[in-house]
């Protein structure tokens, strides 16, 4: 029998719906995403750690969830080892999925990972509330089992999603040191496709004395400023000349290491349709994004510059060092889910490593 559930926001508003997935209550930070595809990817994206996600696209579950086949020691169809977000809110949920590649329903997958969901909610009304009031604390309550509100941003979320041991992938010619702050599998896949050997290290690992050709700082959840050790290590790295690429949280860490500041956006960018301009050109790319914090460009030191800018709200979408091979994008060139138009940035990174190696 279908169970009723409630979504309660910190401002007191309540939305009634039906429970799916795990039948338990949960609290987290409420955020919205306007993507129309890719719920298995989103749910397993470590950047959603601690958050309750509402998708504005109303029909969810249509193509089920693919099986957990592994390739290169990574789940082929997921972005990490498990569902990372805390709760999932949708308008219309489909249990009778249909797809050749599916092996279970979304609800069953969420049950497996003990993640509650609620459907039948006016997700547009909810999204407008978040747009106007900003991301806020929320909880899904099933069976009247109330739970207290929590602010996941006060936790060090990165420590919850980062690897605890050093792992190696691939046997390529470029040695990439991957600082894992909650890396998405597709970043690893994108690098592996490009003839690399990846050493994936925990977020607080001191990599400064390691042997590598290029440093990659991954995406991840939460407030970037909480990653004090990582920022210190990156600061050391930017004092040297080895190529560095960052994505999302990695971009913010690079900025903080360089001495710039970051701030929390009202409701963030979570979508597949964010236009970003390559500064100084007529090129505008459609990007996949998932972030709640941004770089304050006014605080960028003079040897850094804005690489990409959001064409809608002019926020910073990427930075680069004026002379050294360091660059980073706030958006996700690895996509998954979302458009793949900026995957060429990985090629740029490889190119930088080649140039660097040619020089030394």
């Amino acid at each position, binding site marked *: 029998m279908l169970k009723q559930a409630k979504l309660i926001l910190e401002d007191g508003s309540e*939305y009634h719906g039906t429970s799916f997935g795990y039948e338990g209550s949960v609290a987290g930070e409420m955020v*919205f995403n*306007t*993507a*129309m*595809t*890719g719920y*298995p*990817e989103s749910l397993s994206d470590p950047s959603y750690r601690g958050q309750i996600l509402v998708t*504005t*696209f*109303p*029909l969810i579950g*249509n*193509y089920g969830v*693919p099986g957990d086949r592994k390739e290169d020691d990574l789940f082929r*169809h997921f972005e990490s080892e498990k569902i990372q977000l805390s709760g999932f809110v949708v*308008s*219309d949920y*489909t249990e*009778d*999925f*249909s*797809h*050749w*590649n599916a092996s279970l329903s979304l609800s069953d997958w969420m049950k497996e990972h003990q993640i509650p969901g609620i459907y039948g909610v*006016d*997700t*547009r*009304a909810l*999204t*407008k509330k978040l*747009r106007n009031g900003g991301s806020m604390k929320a909880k899904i309550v099933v069976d009247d089992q109330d739970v207290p509100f929590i602010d996941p941003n006060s936790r060090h979320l990165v420590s919850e999603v980062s690897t605890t041991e050093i792992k190696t992938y691939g046997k390529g010619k470029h040695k990439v040191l991957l600082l894992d702050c909650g890396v998405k599998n597709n970043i690893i896949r994108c690098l592996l496709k490009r003839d690399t050997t990846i050493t994936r290290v925990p977020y607080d690992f001191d990599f400064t004395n390691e042997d590598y050709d290029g440093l990659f700082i991954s995406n991840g959840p939460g407030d970037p400023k909480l990653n004090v050790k990582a920022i210190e290590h990156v600061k050391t790295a930017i004092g040297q000349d080895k190529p560095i690429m960052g994505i999302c949280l990695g971009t913010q860490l690079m900025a903080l290491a360089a001495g710039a500041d970051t701030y929390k956006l009202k409701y963030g960018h979570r*979508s*597949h*349709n*964010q*236009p970003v*301009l390559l500064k100084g050109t*007529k*090129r*505008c*790319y*459609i990007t996949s994004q998932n972030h709640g914090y941004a770089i304050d460009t006014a605080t960028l030191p003079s040897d850094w510059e804005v690489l990409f800018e959001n*064409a*809608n*709200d002019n926020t910073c979408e990427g930075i680069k060092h004026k002379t050294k091979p360091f660059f980073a994008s706030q958006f996700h060139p690895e*996509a*998954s*889910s*979302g*458009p*793949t*138009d900026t995957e060429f940035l990985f090629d740029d990174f490889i190119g930088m490593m080649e140039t660097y190696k040619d020089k030394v």
Partner: protein
Amino acid sequence: MTHNIKKVLVLGSGALKIGEAGEFDYSGSQALKAMKEEGIKTVLINPNIATVQTSKGIADEIYFLPITPYFVEQVILKEKPDGILLAFGGQTALNCGIELFNAGTLKKYNLKVLGTPIETIIKTEDREIFAQELRSIDVKTPKSMAVGSIDDALNAAGTLGFPIIVRAAFTLGGQGSGFCNNMDELRVLAENALSYSSQILVEESLKGWKEVEYEVVRDAYDNCITVCNMENFDPLGIHTGESIVIAPSQTLTNSEYHKLRSLALKIIRHFGVVGECNVQYALDPNSEDYRVIEVNARLSRSSALASKATGYPLAFVAAKLGLGYALQDLKNAVTKTTTACFEPALDYVVCKIPRWDLNKFEGVTKEIGSSMKSVGEVMAIGRNFEEAIQKGLRMIGQGMHGFVGNKNSKFEDVDKELANPTDMRIFAIAQAFEKGYTVNQIHDLTAIDKWFLSKLENISKLKWELQKVNELNSLGTDLFRKSKVYGFSDFQIARFVLKPEDGNMEPELLQVRNARKKLGITPVVKQIDTLAAEYPAQTNYLYLTYSGSENDLVYENDNKSVIVLGSGAYRIGSSVEFDWCSVNALSGVKKEGYRSVMINYNPETVSTDYDVCDRLYFDELSFERVLDIIDLEQPKGVIVSVGGQIPNNLAMRLHHSDVKVLGTSPESIDRAENRKTFSAMLDDLRVDQPRWAELSSIEAIHTFIDEVNFPVLIRPSYVLSGAAMNVVSNKNELEHFLNLATQVSKQYPVVVSEFIQEAKEIEFDGVAKDGEILIDAISEHVEFAGVHSGDATLVFPPQKLYFETIRRIRKIAREIAKSLNITGPFNMQLLAKDNDIKVIECNLRASRSFPFVSKVMDFNFVELATKAMLNGTIPSQMPSMFELENIGVKASQFSFSRLSKADPVLGVDMASTGEVGCIGPDYYDAILKSMLSVGYRIPKKGVLISSGPIRSKIELLKSTQMLQKKGYKLYGTRGTAKFLSENGVEIEGVAWPDEKGEITALDLIRSKEVDFVINIPKNLSEDELFNDYQIRRTAIDLNVPLVTNARLASAFIYSFCKKSLETLDINTYSHYLS
């Protein structure tokens, strides 16, 4: 932004036809708007006088001329433009552009093609080059071979193996295409396809694969976006114009979605498209394998749909990109703050359903396939699939109440219906669930994705739940709400729960409505904002849904809203002309200082552009939904008289629900619609009408016919385009048509009236206020009465009416207007024979000819009518049709070539899909231009004549003599040849199709010895009917111009004998008005 274009030529798409309909009025209007914004002078060539784009103030100059290289060159000579837009007038404009390019005309006049380069267009249109190009960038296309002869086609099939698909190159909407399972089928299809095109393609069949489309935009800086993707509910094998389509795609994973998206970007970059382009894919339902089926490097039906589905104005943006703008330089038209360089995020789904009118045609095959037959479409918006599809099935307007609850869809062989799709297949699926079929069983028969099928099964299951309940009180809020969330109408709920007898269900329906409102179950209004609520929308593009708890809008309740009800899906009898009326009513409402509110659901229209009104409800025109919107808007009133018959039919029901209907009172509308009360009124006014009787038994019909004699006209009451209406000349036909007529209207008895032969038919269009006529326009038909007014050729102002006739018509009109106390638009059809005038119909609404007469007279009838209805200030001076110096001729466009096997003959039932209107200094000039505009060509060689009954033989005598004088070689079927040679015309007799062993009429057509066929039906013996049908159909199938009406044939022959292309008057619309 740099461009030095000062004046552009824009090619329209001409008359509406199957495969090329109102969507190009929308895209052309958008392009013109974009040019205007840039201060560029625009010159539009489009003979479609009923469109919004050919209204004053949209283009700087308009030419109502055929879109053919000759006429376009004449306009170029006159106007000296420096740029040309080819992508906004469908295949017609594109083909004309390619011809101009190939002939060197564009180069000769140094004309820059704005947007996508013409070389690109040619590459995408030539299937072999296209496939080669795609292969060169590792993009897969179906295995295919281009051939130019039947033998080569057979060889190609041998290599590829059956089943295969045959396609003709350079045609619209899949004309001449089809599937073949063996050599015999291939031979037939290849011959037909080769008659349309010198090149055909024989391809591997991908039947059963998913069909997915992307709308892609690219600017000159190589920025690319996909604005929308769409998935066909019907798998590959059914033309996308014939498919139910859902946007965005529903069964594709992220990886599939973005794989196809990336390919689309790769393709558009490779071809160098600047502007908009559509890429169609086949996607394997069991892997990520795919094929690119088609690329259209122009605005298309799909792009119009995508614009409406997303709120992203593709045509407008494409036009700007053609001028050299970068995507990010343009603003998002909805938010006005964010950039146009983005991909819309939808927080709803849309469902497009085609509208067919196959019942209107004698002999047409009902099966749908790779060639397009539908005449219109609807788009339904919902927050789940069930809601969207149920809404959509109601919008189609063929008496369906949704997916379930339809009494008039019973199939004897469900399996066959499922496996061989017809226009009714979706209802066969409903019946299959009813019979206990599982999703898997239906999938096996249809190959429709199980996701769609299980959603449909949800609807059936919910229906069964409702049927278990017998009264509204025991329904329960949850089930009640759930039914509404999944798109059930109050009518469906009434039918399943209250289970009333058939017939008028109005009381039960209102009972459900009241119970529902008492429980607080009402729909909410949501905005389409392109960004799924991420940014606020500045426009009011709205829909209603039950999947929601709050309105996006705050209502003022200031009594300032005026709601205009639109015309719904284009269909035979109601198309772009009512869209023009709606758009003009909206601007009239605005001018009077009210808030203009539109309700309509046709994605092919300008009236559903959120820019033309203050609020657009893209939703149903059902009684229920209109009341829902009225509940929210609390309007000053509702205008029901500009959207054709759909809103007209709501007048009385709204009136009974205490809704203020603006203009003529609904009681008067009802009085005019009801034959009995209308006839009684005419009797009172001593106005003559053909004798008629409303009869409900066969005996009574026979008795009445004994009195008035054959032929008689038989029709049901409440008709727009004469569904099941027909002239019956003998007892056999009588039986046949009675069957049809009773099927169409169970509740209404049959009306039989005397049919007057050789009578002139006259249209009266007018606007009145408080019973006084403010302005009128009288036009005459070229054809005698008996050809539906929507198919007839109209001349305005009339050239061959007695002054006395006109004077008496005006007197009758005045009396009727007074009697019905008309305020607003109205139209009458009359017969005149020897000054004897009879009224045959009166509609208290705008008619199909309103845009035509408004434009020829240069006076906007609809705006005046709106003023009258809103009690605005009426101008004191009105123009008079007697002062017009030029003549307008409105000709009809037929789409018989699309309707395989249909008999291309005209009758009292309407068959045309569109129309044009041309203006000229004299009658023959206007006739010839208008007929050339609907696809007739001046013959160069020979004419084949079967002149039918003696009356038409006499009618044609003089014109055949003219043909002979002009040196045409004439051929006639036996009787015709005999009659004409006896009368001194040199003519060669040929055998009828069924006379074996001789050279038959068909051989002549096939060998292209004749390039014009006149075939006047006789309605006599079965043999002759068959023979005539064969001639007509062969002419159509082989694309040889055909006329089936003697009066029209005469008018055409006179025109091209008295005039030549070179002597036709080439002038702007404004020239004719000055």
